[in-house]
């Protein structure tokens, strides 16, 4: 195994910047040019879904304190929009962006020029069409009772085929890579790309296609959800961090020799943590306890990633350099969120604590830390690095970059802090046998709405900047420079 070194790739762009007055267009390497089309497709799709998700998040947040808001038609009722917003965020935004990011990382790390990139684009097209059709069914007809499995089961075969087409490339790239070097990022991408289709297929079969009555589907669902969150979203984002952190800091990772253990322990234990989200449920106690043990074991990969990332950032003014680099500012923010999210997962898998916060907003705050604070922020950071290399253009506006970061960072801090605080206080009030109706805090819903609006502003700033770049025609391929 090898470390990504500062010399092994062209240097990044550093601070957020618009087009310098005396600069030409950035050059596009041959490797980047070979994946430009599918990666741009995935990022553009992700961005559109992110905007849809942000608008829906504002509507659902407002509905929680003004239930009469947009309540004339059944298709805009909270239960439907909430499911749609969640699916748009996870399958539309996060998954599209991570498929594109993984493609670029593997091509880049393997020095591999893709042939037939249209196959990945076709996969992306099928993915997005299937998602759109599935969302229409949820909006107008029915939905399933499990988070992220709400879409009708007919969508599953299309998702599966689409993912194979789009993620078949990672395996091809890895097997045919011209270099013998293998990077940590590649393990995580391969692991994530293998886990998602297998787990999704098995879950669909056991929950929707050949369902069994009773609580077993809830157990299968918890297994799917934890795999999706930790080993698809989380592992793909970790792959990006293992690439960008040493590269942009121009240094090596602290405790690199521990990365193998970190990788295998994450994959080994995360898949068992599902039942820890079902404590107190009607499932057998031994199953719930297994989930608690697995959650505590996540301490091992958490310790290792903390040594790797925070150890690296602590050297040679790493934090201050990260702060002054657009990509790393987002990545470092994401790393803090990741550490907090896993730490909360470990601590609040303890039965006594879990009993207080279960079913409250605390759980959604905890999930938001991982899926938005970590995954989305890392994807944003990666986009600031990758898109100029694919389009051969500069980011049109540095101000919009700042607006994007500060809006999203403040919204996330407000939203997560509010969810955790109000969730905990509601749980504590319920534990003190206060009547349920008296425990809901109206300020929680107001804060949530304000943060949703702030997220929308940040995402709109990002979208304006990104689409400005994606639609520019200043691409210049650098034939002479090999990636």
């Amino acid at each position, binding site marked *: *195994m090898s470390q990504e070194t500062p010399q092994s790739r062209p240097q990044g762009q550093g601070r957020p910047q618009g087009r310098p007055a005396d600069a030409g267009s950035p050059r596009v390497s041959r490797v980047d040019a070979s994946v430009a089309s599918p990666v741009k497709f995935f990022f553009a799709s992700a961005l559109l879904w992110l905007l849809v998700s942000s608008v829906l998040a504002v509507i659902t947040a407002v*509905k*929680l304190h003004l*239930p*009469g808001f947009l*309540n*004339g*038609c*059944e298709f805009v*009722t*909270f*239960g*439907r929009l*909430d*499911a749609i917003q969640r699916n748009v965020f996870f399958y539309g935004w996060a998954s599209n962006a991570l498929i594109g990011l993984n493609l670029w990382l593997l091509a880049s790390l393997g020095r591999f020029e893709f042939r037939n990139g249209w196959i990945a684009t076709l996969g992306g097209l099928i993915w997005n069409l299937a998602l759109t059709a599935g969302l229409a069914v949820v909006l107008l*007809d029915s*939905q*399933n009772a499990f*988070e992220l499995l*709400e879409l009708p089961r007919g969508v599953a075969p299309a998702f599966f085929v689409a993912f194979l087409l789009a993620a078949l490339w990672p395996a091809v790239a*890895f*097997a045919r890579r011209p270099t013998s070097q*293998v990077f940590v990022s590649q393990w995580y991408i*391969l692991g994530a790309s*293998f*886990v998602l289709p297998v*787990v999704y297929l*098995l879950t669909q079969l056991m929950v929707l296609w050949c369902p*069994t*009555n*009773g609580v*077993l*589907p*809830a157990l299968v669902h918890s*297994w799917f959800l934890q*795999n999706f969150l930790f080993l698809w979203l989380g592992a793909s984002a970790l792959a990006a961090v293992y690439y960008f952190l040493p590269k942009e800091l121009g240094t090596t990772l602290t405790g690199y020799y521990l990365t193998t253990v970190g990788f*295998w322990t994450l*994959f*080994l234990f995360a*898949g*068992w943590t*599902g039942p820890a989200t079902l*404590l*107190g449920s*009607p*499932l*057998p106690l031994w199953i719930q306890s*297994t989930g608690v043990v697995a959650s505590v074991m996540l301490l091992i990969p958490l310790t290792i990633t903390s040594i790797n990332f925070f150890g690296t950032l602590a050297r040679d003014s790493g934090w201050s350099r990260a702060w002054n680099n657009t990509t790393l500012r987002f990545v470092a923010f994401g790393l803090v969120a990741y550490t907090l999210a896993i730490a909360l997962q470990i601590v609040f898998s303890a039965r006594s604590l879990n*009993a*207080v916060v279960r*079913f409250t907003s605390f*759980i*959604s705050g905890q999930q938001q830390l991982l899926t938005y604070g970590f995954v989305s922020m890392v994807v944003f950071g990666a986009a600031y690095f990758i898109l100029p290399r694919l389009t051969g253009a500069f980011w049109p506006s540095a101000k919009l970059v700042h607006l994007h970061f500060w809006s999203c960072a403040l919204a996330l801090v407000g939203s997560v802090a509010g969810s955790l605080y109000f969730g905990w206080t509601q749980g504590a009030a*319920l*534990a003190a*046998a206060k009547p*349920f*109706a008296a425990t*809901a805090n109206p300020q929680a*819903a107001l804060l949530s709405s304000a943060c949703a609006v702030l997220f929308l502003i940040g995402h709109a700033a990002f979208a304006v900047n990104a689409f400005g770049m994606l639609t520019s025609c200043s691409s210049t391929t650098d034939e002479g420079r090999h990636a």
Partner: protein
Amino acid sequence: MKNLNLILAGVFFTVAAPFGGLLLSGHAQLGSLGRAPAEEGGPLFPAKEPGLAIQGRQVYLELGCVACHTQQVRPAGQGSDIAQGWGVRPSVARDYVLQSQVALGNRRVGPDLANYGARAKTDAEIAAHLSAPAVGSSMPTFPSLFSKAKDGSLQPNERGAALIAYLKSLRQDYSSPEAKLKQ
């Protein structure tokens, strides 16, 4: 780690281990669970849902009620569900053996509904709650479940009646072999 096959084999193991250890073992324990009497010779529980309630379950899923309501009562030491009056005993796996798509839920914006049928009063009161929830509640109204009668009052339509029947069928107020009611 440079070997693709080794990495994929290892990842396959990490997926297969919880699949076998949790899901297949869980299936072995829960898959054959059926209705049972609390005492020998007694009636079988859970009771079968009436046909209208089965249609109502579909309305419950369509509207996404699971986004705000759970259907599981935790044991006394694990939360205050019983103290809140949401159930008279903790939910057990056998309570759900007739349900094809169990809606346990994961968030409580509103109260738990596992034993709602036992505390619900009349159809009219449930209908009134669906058409005009209490002031201060986060619950929206559901005009699509009602139609105007000749006297101008709102009456549950076919879907509304089915949902009401389903809500009334939600009961966990019987003894089961795993959770006996206190006398």
